[in-house]
């Protein structure tokens, strides 16, 4: 197994720049959940200069629409959803100060460019490892857009949430660099 480093969120530029694609991390602290519908509303709020549901500066967004919490759990199964659907909204959020994203799957060139420009990292969590990931979520707080159901914005307090730095602020992208190493012609 690869050594994992414990990191604390929210993040500053210093931490962002220390993270390199391929690093295994355990995330500790607060992250915010948001999927397509919530992203759309955040952008609308930003455009019409209305208050945002939370201050994005230094924060990490987890792309997840969890299952309801069974008795004894603070949240139900909570694995990452496909990040690409958030790509059209992401550069604006990065501009507003977002420092990290947790999801699964590739990101667009525009997102990667914006990540370099505004200094941010993209963490991959293992898609489908939703019960395992739910165990590292210790507290859940409703933040905004409750009418969106599983797509509402929530604050998750996570303890040793396992993730991998997939795209770093230098533009390195594991989805681009790793598969060719194992490809047979």
């Amino acid at each position, binding site marked *: 197994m690869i050594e994992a480093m414990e990191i604390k969120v929210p993040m500053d530029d210093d931490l962002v720049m220390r993270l390199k694609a391929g690093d295994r991390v355990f995330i500790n602290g607060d992250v915010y959940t948001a999927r397509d519908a919530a992203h759309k509303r955040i952008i609308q709020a930003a455009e019409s200069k209305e208050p945002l549901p939370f201050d994005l500066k230094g924060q990490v967004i987890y792309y997840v629409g969890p299952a309801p919490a069974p008795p004894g759990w603070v949240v139900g199964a909570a694995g990452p959803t496909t990040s690409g659907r958030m790509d059209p909204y992401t550069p604006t959020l990065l501009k507003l100060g977002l420092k990290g994203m947790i999801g699964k*799957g590739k990101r667009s060139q525009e997102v990667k460019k914006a990540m370099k420009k505004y200094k941010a990292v993209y963490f991959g969590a293992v898609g*489908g490892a939703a019960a395992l990931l739910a*165990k590292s979520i210790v507290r859940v707080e409703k933040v905004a857009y409750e009418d969106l159901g599983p797509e509402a914005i929530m604050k998750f307090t996570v303890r040793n949430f396992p993730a991998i730095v997939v795209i770093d602020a230098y533009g390195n992208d594991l989805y681009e660099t790793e598969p060719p190493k194992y490809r047979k012609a």
Partner: protein
Amino acid sequence: MRVREIHVGMIEDAVKALFLKANTSIGQDIYNALLDMRDKYEKSPLGKDVLDQILKNHDIARDKGIAMCQDTGMAVVFLDIGQDVHLVGGLVEDAVNRGVKAAYDEGYFRKSVVDDPLFERKNTQTNTPAVIHTKIVKGDRVRILAMPKGFGSENMSALKMLTPAAGVEGVKDFVVKTVMDAGPNPCPPTVIGVGIGGTMEQAALIAKRATARPVGSSNEDPRYAQLEREILERINSLGIGPGGLGGTTSCLALHIEYVPGHLAGIPVAVNVCCHACRHAEVTI
């Protein structure tokens, strides 16, 4: 020939039990294949790590009775109904939907179905309607196959109408390209169902059902079995790896089903399923 009466309440209960089971405990065939990948075949350290998390996740889900993935999918139900069965007690479709709703309530599963695909997209709050495929078969029993289908992988599925000239090579290339384009999105290692022949919708239907075949099984026709092996090998040579982060194990199994077709075409459907390839069945 005597007709056997089956009350739809039995189908409702069976559907409920099957979805509760399928969403929380992965089949032993898939579990064992994942173990083998981690311990024997995967070369990438990161890939091994991903497989390890997937296996741990399956253990937690099964032991705690919690959904293995938050996307508990659309509820796909195959009903093979014996022609000597008389279903009583109401509409079978309603019974299936009641069973699905009950399972998704009781299991604390996420409800992901919207009433209208394009405009309102309002959550029905019940995970219904289920997607029901019925078939009339011999006998006096009802076989129920429940398959919760997540959309990270469903969205990566594809269908193409090939010309006869495209032939075997055309099929291979299309399947491999579909999986390559999907990359990390369908949560590899995947299970791939391929349907060849018939009409457009028939190819798609047999492809879906092919994903529920036991991992390790082969098509009965040796030519198709050979094709399964060849395409699987090509996919595992792509380097996609567990989670798409590079590696030597990208696909757990590739199952091909075929039906007779038309002179002028070869429909090929590729249904992509994630490592959380959930299905459970019962015959009543």
